[in-house]
């Protein structure tokens, strides 16, 4: 059982970190569909830096930094140039996918898998099985989640970010710069996405292959919607998706011949749709954060 939990946690960690980033942005009123692009960037850069420097802290800082720089770019385009966040997010995903391949071509001359000899330290190295594989990031993620929750729900600045997304005019009338709150939320999200990408590639795999993000950013975003942009709710939803993924593989191996494999591969996406429907039904569409809040001041 503990092995299953560890395996699910392992699989959920990148989703959890990205979902936290998405929840922060959502709280600040920005639909963040670019999580996957930022993850790709973090995944690629952490492996390249780990390979080239052999230094894990540098690799992580580099990954987070690059994802944060792209987040700042997103902020500029969305907040300063009034671009549609959804389209920008889709653009960031394309940049993440194409840019990492281009980057690898630029660095190594040809596209392909990059392998690092060093990886993120394993915390329970001595323990056999999935538990022993948990990286420092995977182990630290619950604490990070609590930290983000505390920041969002238990500090004044967190409330200010929430006000920015919920009712921007209210935030402004209290003297809060909505654009700065959005910047904070996106930058912090950039750090989290960088970590998420690093965990994905450098965590247990220690290698990066282009496209390995494989739609995880969108699943993380769905977790944000499912969790009503609450940090812990989004984390719970992300863990749920990790569990669905684990179950999808399990069912593939154990229900051979019963359900075609392709349907098992669809499972995470179908479950996402069902979960979104159920939460919308339970919560009532009006209670989630709205795409566009138009209130006349």
């Amino acid at each position: 059982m503990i092995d299953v939990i560890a395996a699910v946690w392992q699989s959920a960690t990148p989703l959890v970190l990205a979902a936290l980033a998405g929840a922060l942005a959502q709280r600040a009123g920005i639909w963040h569909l670019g999580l996957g692009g930022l993850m790709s960037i973090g995944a690629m850069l952490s492996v390249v830096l780990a390979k080239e420097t052999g230094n894990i802290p540098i690799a992580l800082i580099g990954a987070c930094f690059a994802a944060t720089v792209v987040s700042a770019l997103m902020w500029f385009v969305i907040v300063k140039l009034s671009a549609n966040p959804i389209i920008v997010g889709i653009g960031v995903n394309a940049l993440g996918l194409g840019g990492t391949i281009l980057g690898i071509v630029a660095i190594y001359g040809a596209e392909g898998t990059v392998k690092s000899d060093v990886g993120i330290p394993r915390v329970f190295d001595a323990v056999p099985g999935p538990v022993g594989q948990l990286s420092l990031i995977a182990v630290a993620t619950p604490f990070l989640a609590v930290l983000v929750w505390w920041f969002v729900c238990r500090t004044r600045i967190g409330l200010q970010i929430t006000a920015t997304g919920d009712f921007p005019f209210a935030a402004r009338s209290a003297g809060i710069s909505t654009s700065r709150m959005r910047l904070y939320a996106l930058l912090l999200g950039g750090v989290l996405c960088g970590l998420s990408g690093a965990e994905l590639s450098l965590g247990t795999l220690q290698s990066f292959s282009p496209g390995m993000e494989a739609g995880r950013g969108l699943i993380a975003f769905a977790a944000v919607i499912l969790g009503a942009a609450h940090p812990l709710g989004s984390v719970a939803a992300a863990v749920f998706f990790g569990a669905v993924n684990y179950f999808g593989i399990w069912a593939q191996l154990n229900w051979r011949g019963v359900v075609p494999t392709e349907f098992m591969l669809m499972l995470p996406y179908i479950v996402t749709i069902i979960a979104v429907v159920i939460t919308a039904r339970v919560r009532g569409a009006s209670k989630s954060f709205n795409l566009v809040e138009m209130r006349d001041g």
Partner: protein
Amino acid sequence: MADNAITCTGVTVRFGDFVALDDVSVAFERGRIHALVGQNGAGKTTLARAIAGLEAVSEGSISSNGEIIPNGDVIASRERGIEMVHQSFALPPSMTVAEALEYGSTVKGGRSFTRRGLNARWQKYLDASRVSVRAGEKLRNLPVETMQSIEIARALAGDARILILDEPTAVLPPESVGRLFEQIRRLKAAGVTVIIVLHKVREVLEIAETVTVLRRGKLILETVEASGVSVADFTEAIIGGSDAAAAGVAPGTSPVASDDLAAIGLDLGTHAATEFVDTATGESLVRLVGVTSASSSGGPGLHGVDLELFGGQIVGVAGVEGNGQVALAETIAGLSEVRDGQVELIGESATRLDPLRRRGLGLRIIPFDRNTEGLSRSSPLWQNWAIPLLVGARRRRGYVRTGVLRKEAESAFQEWDVRFTSVNQNASELSGGNAQKVILARELDADARVIIAAQPTRGLDLGAVEFVWRALRRARDSGAAVLLISSDLDELMEICDRIIVVYAGGIALDTARPFHIAEIGSAMTGVSA
């Protein structure tokens, strides 16, 4: 000038090419209650926001206690004790009361907190401010009155020395207005300077010590003592003698004169039946029998309501907001689910009839909120006007000759004296009064038999109010049944033939002229129920 809490010097605010405030220089003395009045779009909110730092001034400066406040900087204004209560509240609906009080708080410390600590801290404050609400309650579940109390409490939570209230009475029932005014007097006694934006002359005279009048962005009267102005001067200043026609009074009506002033409720409290003519045809056009229904937005519903509306009558609906007015309008309109009872419309059973068919029978609605329910602000005027034609409630379907519709819209707008530049203009470009006229032009056609007018004059200036009233009276005179839902008792007493009071989803009083304000008041507060 050190005695002035706020001094505006040559303040000009532009939105693009539009000048919302034009070289306004005005000073507000410390420790007094100042009224800021003017028509819709006069620039009151803009001036208030400029003082609060929410709107950057294009030219000129604003100083507090002799010191210039940095331009367009809310924090700087708040540091000087300037707090603003907004026309529609600025409270994030997803938050709890305590969170809403906390997020913008300037009180030092408390950068992080526990939920219990936060609730306890703000509960203490709320109790001390005599706001009866739990600090842990979600804002979206609260009624408007409580929201306003919280909004004021929020403004006063820091070290507020100058409090700006933008139309605080617009959403309040009469008895709450009294309580609000008491609170304002207490604040003044504590040394707070109050600037209050008001529309009703009666309220101005009741609370304000000085009056400042804006018209079309220009300063007309500068902080004169309220006790020294006559009602006539005052109205003249607001509407502008020669400008009266431009203010939206329909052609053919005389410029505002003292008779009209009486007609629009400026005569403090005497409700003579100035224009009352009994035109009731006796024809029953709406009948609710034991109706129990829910409001579609989850607000309070109706419980076992019996009601009959007759042609040739304006029936007023009085009541504190949130007692079932929305459900009543929605039930007749067919927008909410009827759980029990019967609805009849123009002789037909309509309990299960969809809204469109009801409109086909002659039902017309002027909804509560003209900017969301009444109009699509970002759609062209002609589209806003043509919807009934497009959905086939009145005429056609399928292929649409838009040129013809545009022309028809144009002539309808001219008939209703809408001030517009083109039918292709977006509705958002119209001022409040003109926007309301577009709705009237759409809803009050010749086939209208039953008209639900919900808050049709809320936020309108005197001229516009008069225009709406005339329109409703005309509809009544042509034999329609009018249901007028309003939170303005003066308005109801003025033009209704009959008033019902809703209380807790039921009808607490159904009375014909002459009206007794005490009786209505006690029904509204549930005393007589």
